[in-house]
């Protein structure tokens, strides 16, 4: 496996704690574009353990709040591109934190798509079914915990499989 761009030492570091590093992006969208990456190597968000993921959002939120004050930003975007179809270029989970100003010529909006009610209904049902079992945090009942663990093991197995299959 080739060496990961974000796993080694990074330049222009702005923040660090036990599990995360934040630095200014080499090719930023605007000045002050921060990338927050977990120190441990995860390729996509699905591999990131729950607590680390929560912490990541928390840290991103703090950094984004600081940007308002530090750079006089009028708004901030927090953006995670997850998977190559979404434009993820480096195989390491990273949170983009982008300071925004009026008229900065960044277009991070989307063109809304018109969707039939039927189609929406199908998607809704599918997602509802898939989200039914989401239980987050520590307040879990014991039997469910075991179930989740089993799933995690399954997941980690296929993740390993895929990773070892890669050059």
């Amino acid at each position: 496996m080739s060496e990961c761009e974000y796993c080694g030492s990074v330049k222009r570091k702005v923040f660090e704690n036990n599990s995360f590093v934040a630095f200014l992006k080499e090719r930023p969208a605007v000045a002050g574009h921060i990338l927050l990456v977990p120190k441990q190597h995860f390729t996509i968000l699905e591999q990131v353990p729950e607590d680390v993921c929560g912490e990541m959002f928390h840290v991103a939120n703090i950094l984004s709040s600081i940007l308002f004050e530090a750079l006089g930003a009028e708004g901030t975007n927090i953006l995670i591109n997850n998977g190559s179809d979404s434009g993820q270029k480096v195989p390491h989970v990273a949170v983009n934190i982008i300071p925004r100003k009026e008229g900065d010529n960044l277009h991070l909006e989307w063109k809304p798509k018109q969707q039939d009610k039927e189609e929406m209904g199908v998607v809704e049902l599918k997602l509802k079914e898939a989200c039914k079992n989401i239980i987050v945090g520590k307040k879990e009942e014991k039997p469910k915990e075991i179930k989740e663990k089993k799933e995690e093991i399954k997941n980690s197995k296929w993740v390993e499989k895929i990773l070892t299959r890669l050059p």
Partner: protein
Amino acid sequence: MSDQPTPEQIKAFQEKLAKLSPEERKAFFRQQCVFCQIVDGKIDSMKVFEDGLCIGVLDINPANPGHVLLLPKEHFQVGPQVPESTMRHMGMVAKAISNACLKVLKCGGTTIFVANGMPAGQRAQHFMVHIIPRKEKDGHFEISENGAVDDGLADNLRVFIEKKLGIKVESTAKKEEKNEAGVEEPEDAPRPVKEKGYIYFVDEDGDVSRCRMVKGRVKEKQKKEKVLKVGIKRQPNTLYFVDNGLNIRMTRMNRSGRKKAGKEKRDVEKKSGVGIDDIARLFTK
């Protein structure tokens, strides 16, 4: 959105707000905010997820099918107002929903997006996390790379963050100086290039080897020569080859044709986790 309030109206509104007590203000915002009403169930929505702290609904103007808005139940306008516990919780839920999108909607990636403030593209007065299933080249969220690079900014920002959070972050600039003064770190050895007259392949150890070809064929007793040590683990049913940049690539070989319906069904059942093929597709590019 067409009729903007006049400055007088805004002033009058702000004065009115200032008179309200915090509780009243909270109630007022709650009444005004469309998304709070969605949370309260006063407006119909396509709810896909709900727990004690947050709720996930489908966006009525989705970027892609399956565009989920994750809303905290309490009213917050922007991210900095959201307390730590809620933010952590939402992070975990966002990941789980993104996971569900990958599993169910056959997309090759997701984007998790938060906008704080009007210039960032926030349109509603309620903090939310967008989870958007992505398809290749759908044209959303192309982050430009044209911004100015400023090394001084990093130092300033680092100092600011250190002060603000009361932590110490080791400067990377100092390390670089040391390197310049002392021993220079060896640069990465240049990667060998493919030469003519050789065939390159992946050997048993998972490394790249090459073998001389004579008249377009490999003679039987030719010596194999290792070029690159990679050490990948070879998997069965997979074809490995070496591309022009001397990277190892692979494709899966499929012995059973797709026509066999029974076989395919069984394969689908096996996939209990996230769509493995979806994820694999993310990596193999």
